[in-house]
């Protein structure tokens, strides 16, 4: 299947689960789709039939609230049946409001409390080197999340321990709950900041899965990597795009139908 079509379908599945739950975070889920696509459908070394495979690459969605998109990807990859998505956030379902490694196959790390996932990813990368393993660790962070001090503690130690098996991918959509990053708490020049912390830095179009994948493939030695993926919050649904108000709100019936129409996906049932 064409990558763009796959992205549209993942977005539709994401929104459908949020609509069904009448709860969840559509904005940041829609912006992160191509980053997930580059990892799960291209560069990451994983075995969906063996989620605990020891040599798999680890993928940590540090911006855990975007998990509806991740859940849609994992279902599509076969980690669990797609019908599970219908029960997102329900008491009788493993799909928690934020990723839970104890409950959901394919989730490597519990995340959701912002900043902690990227720090755990650093620990995973240190442990991989400690154990003499060659797998990579990918951490997906949000821009608002980088306001958490722990992200910079983690950045300092990633460079100190020369974690060239760690890739930090920023879903840079520029928005957070209370508005634009620049209004709430400016990130400044994020590339220069990560560079100053000792990362190899690249900037890419965050809605171009191929560009993200090739940035990840660039060989680097002795340094952790930072890939700034410029994205649009709410990407793919016109009325959600670049709107802070769609951070954590489920669509109404009319809005959902309109979104599906724009994504070119027919509503089942």
């Amino acid at each position, binding site marked *: 299947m064409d990558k763009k079509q796959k992205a549209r379908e993942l977005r539709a599945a994401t929104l459908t689960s949020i609509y069904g739950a009448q709860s969840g975070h559509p904005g940041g889920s829609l912006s992160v789709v191509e980053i997930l696509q580059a990892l799960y459908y291209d560069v990451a070394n994983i075995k969906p039939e063996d989620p605990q495979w020891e040599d798999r690459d*680890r993928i940590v969605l540090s911006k855990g609230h975007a998990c509806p998109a991740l859940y849609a990807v994992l279902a599509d990859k076969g980690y669990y049946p797609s019908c599970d998505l219908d029960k997102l956030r329900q008491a009788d379902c493993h799909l928690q409001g934020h990723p*839970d*490694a*104890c409950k959901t196959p394919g989730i*490597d*790390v*519990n995340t*959701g*409390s912002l*900043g*902690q996932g990227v*720090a*755990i*990813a*650093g*620990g*995973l*990368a*240190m*442990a*991989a080197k*400690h*154990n003499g393993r060659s797998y990579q660790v990918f951490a997906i962070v949000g821009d608002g999340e980088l306001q958490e*001090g*722990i992200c910079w*503690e*983690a950045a*300092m*130690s990633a460079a*100190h*321990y020369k974690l060239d098996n760690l890739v930090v991918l920023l879903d840079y959509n520029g928005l957070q709950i209370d508005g634009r990053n620049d209004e709430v708490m400016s990130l400044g020049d994020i590339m220069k900041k990560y560079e100053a912390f000792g990362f190899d830095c690249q900037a890419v179009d965050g809605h171009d899965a191929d560009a993200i994948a090739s940035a990840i493939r660039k060989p680097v030695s002795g340094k952790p990597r930072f890939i700034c993926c410029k994205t649009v919050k709410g990407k793919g649904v016109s009325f959600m795009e670049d709107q802070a108000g769609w951070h954590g709100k489920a669509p109404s019936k009319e809005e959902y139908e309109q979104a599906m129409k724009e994504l070119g996906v027919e509503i089942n049932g």
Partner: protein
Amino acid sequence: MAESKSLRVAYGEALAEIGAEHKEVVVLDADLAHATMTAIFADKYPERFYNMGIAEANLMCAASGFAYSGLTPFVSTFAMFGAGRAYEMIRNSISYCNLNVKLGFSHSGLCVGEDGGSHQSIEDIALMRVLPGMTILVPCDSIEMKKAVRASLDIPGPVYIRVARPVVDSFTNPEDEFIPGKANILREGSDVAIIATGLMVTEALEAAEKLSKEGVSASVVNMHTIKPLDEKCVLEMAEKCGAIVTAEEHSIIGGLGSAVAETLAGKSAAPFIRVGIQDKFGKSGKPSELFCEYGLTGSNIADQCKKAIAQKK
């Protein structure tokens, strides 16, 4: 003659000892290796020691990453910065996932002394106790510290080991059984039971000795495990002695006293008094001076025992 050793030195030595047999053990510290004494492990096994710098939030999450990868990290810093500053990392990135991380936090309680209230953690047990699945061990001397470190390896999931700073004369025996969750009864008495933990165990023994000279018979329980609490022992002591006094170098809110109160509630009408820090912060001073001022002494425990006995109906 009893061995005198700092509990933190015993902790560091214990890590080095288990490190020889358990290659999966790694140790992470936050620039306090020479205070927490993880340096003893680091000298022996430098390839399994990671200094994470003065960054406790990242320290906990890095440990989480090691545990996810099948290793057994022992994490050390001061109790204030581990249980306190990095509380939510322990909560969400260690405890919530029931990861096999051992937290050995030193410099707990008033015995930090001169560094003052900002560094005296009087709430760490309370903070750790509310976390589902967390085991809490509070050793009373260096012999027990070594047993606790070793025992923590057999407990799947997170364990908090409270490591006091001072040099303590060892009074337990190497052959004494140490079973997490099972209290050790050090002295049998019939008028009152003193349930003590950590540095307060010696004070409790002193109190019992003092009381015996006054014709009062006191039991002394070494409650080395705060969670899971040996509830059976607490209830049996309440039944047998009819009065309970708890003693801890920690706030009376949320620690041993609270745990015992929760056990007794609705099950025993025995008079019950909590010796500990009475809902206030610490301050600078010599540990011995502070222990007197805050009532963490054998003589105050004895006085409180007499009060509890007087309340019996």
